[in-house]
């Protein structure tokens, strides 16, 4: 039992930190432009695909460096020539634009790379078990994923709170006009933040691609979960996003690892139903079965009882 618990925690952490890499960029973009970027997970997918293509010729590590840069530049271009144009039509138009962009990127990926899964591999260098516990191996690559995520979190935190550029960004978020009056180019800052946010998603894609398989549906699988995290954590709150990411990562991992379900609850209550009961599906429900929908349940509950999210300040 203990081994399952320990590994479930580790798995939850890996997923949670990966989700955070996406959520951090998304929440940053939200606090800046007030719009949730539906296409954020699509940049994650692009990261994986670019890295795959680069790695075919120059190896994994080159991909790790260049793919996020390409994705970041793409993101900046989308902000400059797409979002900024749509901005004048209001938030709904922006949201719908990013929704359409997500749709288009998925189709474009299928156009350029095809619909089948890609053989994107983790580097040989990290192809060994980091440690073995209770007969279970923990791959070094997963340790590497944790390392990268944490260092990005620290780096981001440092830049945003300690550096000059971070202070300008923070100021631009809350008082764009004042900052622009002080002689800073606010649209340029916005464009850069969007680009960096997309690049972060790209990094997540590069390191997740080999583990979670690189295929055209990878954005959809992760996309709505990242949304859920940003909303649960509180729109625009980096700390909230961090807590929500880890929470959801662990929640899903524990739910899968557990073996309990309605039958156990009914046993506990001393109730019994036969298999022909019209609600039989409900009485046989198990926790692992519903693990993937738990985040959405949490989302609806949070939005009903605390619309600002865990750490959010502002209401829309």
């Amino acid at each position, binding site marked *: 039992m203990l081994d399952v618990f320990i590994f479930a925690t580790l798995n939850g952490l890996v997923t949670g930190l990966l989700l955070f890499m996406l959520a951090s960029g998304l929440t940053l973009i939200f606090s800046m432009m007030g719009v949730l970027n539906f296409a954020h997970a699509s940049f994650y997918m692009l990261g994986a695909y670019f890295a795959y293509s680069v790695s075919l010729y120059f190896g994994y590590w080159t991909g790790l460096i260049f793919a996020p840069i390409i994705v970041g530049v793409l993101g900046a271009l989308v902000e400059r020539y797409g979002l900024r144009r749509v901005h004048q039509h209001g938030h709904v138009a922006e949201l*719908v*634009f990013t929704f*359409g962009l997500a*749709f*288009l990127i998925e189709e474009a990926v299928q156009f350029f790379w095809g619909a089948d899964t890609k053989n994107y591999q983790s580097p040989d260098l990290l192809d060994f078990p980091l440690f073995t516990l209770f007969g279970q191996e923990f791959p070094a690559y997963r340790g590497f994923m944790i390392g990268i995520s944490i260092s990005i979190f620290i780096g981001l935190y440092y830049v945003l709170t300690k550096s000059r550029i971070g202070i300008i960004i923070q100021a631009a978020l809350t008082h764009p006009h004042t900052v622009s009056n002080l002689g800073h180019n606010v649209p340029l800052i916005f464009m850069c933040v969007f680009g960096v946010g997309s690049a972060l998603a790209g990094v997540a894609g590069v390191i997740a691609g080999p583990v979670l398989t690189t295929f055209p549906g990878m954005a959809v699988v992760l996309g709505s979960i990242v949304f859920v995290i940003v909303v649960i954590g509180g729109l625009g709150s980096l700390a909230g996003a961090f807590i929500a990411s880890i929470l959801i990562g662990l929640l899903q991992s524990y739910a899968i690892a557990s073996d309990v379900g309605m039958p156990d609850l009914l046993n506990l209550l001393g109730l019994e139903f036969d298999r022909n009961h019209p609600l*039989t599906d409900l009485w046989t*429900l198990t926790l692992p079965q519903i693990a993937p929908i738990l985040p959405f349940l949490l989302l609806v509950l949070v*939005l009903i009882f605390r619309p600002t999210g865990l750490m959010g300040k502002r209401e829309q």
Partner: protein
Amino acid sequence: MAILKKSAVWIGYLAALLALPQFFDSVLAVSIFNQMAIAIVFGLSYNMLLGQGGMLSFGHAVYFGLGGFLAVHALLMIEVETVYFSIIWIPLVGGFIGLLAALFIGTFSTHKAGTVFAMISLGIGELLAASSLIFVSFFGGEAGVSGDRTFGPPFFGIEWFQNLEIYYLAVAWVFIATVFMYLFTQTPAGKMANAVRDNPERAEFIGYSARKVRYITFCAAGLFAGVAGGLFALNYEFITEENLNAATSGRVLLSAYIGGLGYFIGPIVGAVILTLMNSLLSNYSDLWMLYLGIMFLLTVMFLPRGFAGFIMMHQLAWVRGKIKSLLVPYLLTGIPSLLFLISVVGLIELSHTDEAELYYFGLSFNSTAAMDFILIAIVALGSLLSIRRSLPQLRAAWEAANEIPESVDEESTS
């Protein structure tokens, strides 16, 4: 006079719906018309929510799907004679369930519009789509549930064997639904929905609860989505999980937006365009989804009020009798634009094909020869340059035709 004019529009609408199968009567055409009829009701109901009430929903298919599922279950009940009524009332069953679901979900989702509403709708949509695969006894798992519309009492001798018969039934329901949805826009509740969309605070100040107004609009939208679901059940005689999942919700958003939000006819235009693309374009190119995505993005960027909005932009010029002065500049820009579009699509198709030879607009191209690519690229480039040259002319002509600087009243709706 005004009433006469208005009723002429409605009679024309009904006549057009009824006449369609007279011109195209193949099995395929009728099945496309049926699809359109369903999409029109669903799209109008979505427009009620977003265009009229300002609530962006990523889960509107929930009401459509629930209505459809209950409608199929009703068909099954008719089959085993638990209940006994003519299947012409099935869309009402769907509508009733759509309404019930909206009555319940609306209690907590309509507190706020904007992002909060959008997120709740997304969450509920995902929850229900996932549950539909878990609760197999009601939703039938991924295979769905399937019924048969030919049981139950015949309606004036019609036993609903053919899809054409269903089409005429659908027309009746589409017409009724359209009339009621139009009337809703004219009621105080409908007008207030617009007010709440544009400025909830002011609406509150004059004594209306923004939330209550949203709730009413939300429920009405749920009702009509359910009616559309009932029509779906009658046409296809089965329904599956995919009819209430995020993809269906996304598609109705796409179609309403491309058609034109805020205009009553917008979703009708969108439903027609999207159905045609889905059923015809998809047979000529397997990249049609890519084109749909590009078209959608271009619409959001350049035609924020959709195709209907584009047509309505010409209202002023029309009224002022200056529409003719736009004709030549439109042609000057339009022809190269069309050429540009054709050549870009040609390039995409040529680079995508895995056959050596591509027939495109009656010409044969070789997908392995660089020369053919360059040739099409030159055409594309040439037409692009020509567009750039003629565009200022069009802009000048446009401004001349709409002399008042603010051109069309941007806020005009319905």
